[in-house]
């Protein structure tokens, strides 16, 4: 008897369109619902580690800010533990959600996340990855959400040893993944969809 592998195919992606905020951040659009938008607050109490703010803008190929994007981030706590059901390595910070969602400012497009500096987490082969935040961008004109990572320019040694940063073929592009330190606890991470500074996006 022939055995046939009957796997399903992932549902095809479609653009989030210009009104993604209606569905994911309705309060931001003036539709009062749910008692507040999900992902607005990443800290629910006193948190461990260094509190930081990351701001940035998503730019299109004409260097125009996107003002209808939605940016989500996901990261471990300061100890490198994910506030997730499938975290088995320890007890994550109970006052930290690890997940943030920002619509960006409606006139400037600037997004902001008030979070904590993440700890390092292991790569599947056991090496340590440099501290990083996973980011995902959707908007009108983006057919499938874009995954990238926010590393930190002041983590020089761990960045040099990071298994993913070190496999990038064009080292000149690595800075597109590094948040710039702009002050105490303040970082800047702009995202370029196209052009000479195009951010590295991931197929993961």
């Amino acid at each position: 008897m022939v055995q046939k592998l009957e796997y399903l195919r992932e549902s095809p992606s479609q653009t989030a369109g210009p009104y993604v905020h209606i569905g994911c951040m309705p309060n931001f659009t003036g539709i009062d619902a749910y008692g507040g938008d999900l992902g607005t607050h990443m800290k629910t109490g006193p948190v461990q580690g260094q509190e930081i703010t990351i701001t940035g803008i998503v730019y299109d190929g004409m260097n125009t800010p996107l003002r209808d994007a939605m940016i989500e981030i996901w990261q471990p706590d300061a100890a490198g533990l994910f506030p997730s059901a499938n975290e088995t390595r320890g007890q994550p910070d109970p006052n930290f959600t690890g997940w943030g969602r920002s619509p960006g400012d409606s006139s400037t497009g600037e997004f902001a996340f008030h979070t904590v500096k993440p700890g390092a987490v292991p790569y599947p082969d056991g090496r340590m990855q440099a501290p990083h935040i996973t980011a995902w961008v959707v908007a009108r004109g983006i057919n499938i959400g874009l995954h990238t990572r926010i590393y930190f320019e002041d983590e020089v040694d761990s960045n040099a040893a990071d298994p993913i940063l070190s496999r990038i073929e064009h080292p000149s592009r690595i800075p597109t993944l590094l948040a710039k330190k702009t002050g105490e606890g303040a970082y800047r991470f702009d995202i370029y969809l196209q052009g000479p500074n195009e951010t590295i996006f991931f197929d993961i």
Partner: protein
Amino acid sequence: MSLIKQTGGFVPRDRSWQPDALTPTYKTSIKRSPQAALLSFPTTLSEETSPVFGHNLIGELDNDLILNYAHAGESAIGPRIIVYGRVLDEMGRGVPGALVEFWQANAGGRYRHKKESYLAALDPNFGGCGRTITAEDGSYEFRTVQPGPYPWPNGMNDWRPAHIHFSLFGHGFAQRLITQMYFEGDPHIKLCPIAGALNNQKAIDALTALLDMHRTVPMDSRAFKFDIVLRGQRQTYFENRKEGL
């Protein structure tokens, strides 16, 4: 209560089945599509974990767009429908505890948004957003009115098919997905540059909900079935897996 002891990697995404970033007939994609190759690597904990959204997150009317924005004693205008289905992974397993968010235009094809320019009337009793969490078998359902097709500034006279937007949050950040649901028989589907970005009739069919007369509520609502598939993960699922985890 046994929790998952290990997390496996997600199977690679089939990029030939997914839409290309650059689809010039959908004009906005021209300046918003990355040009360089994506960087591939196996998923790590950053992609294999995700936040938990429990059933206690959901309010009583969150999955009822007919009533969740309506004034007391009133309801949204339009053909009343039920949308239901299952969220599965590529191995066909139900995905419990997935956050499903949805948004749509009203029955006239107009969104409740300050940037909306279509002159169809706003329905004072329709907000256009809802959400739910999938049950233990991955099933979900919500009630709404069938959205109308509407014109949009892409070509001279482009109209979007009637559709509902879906945002899915499963068990790993790598599964994150936003898509749209179309309605069986809508003649606008084959004219739409966004649906056409799929360049594959089977993929479009996978996003086309089917009328299910057995699930209707007689003299009340028709029903459309829409299953959604998230990426598969190499991990053991336990039958006593806690709901919502």
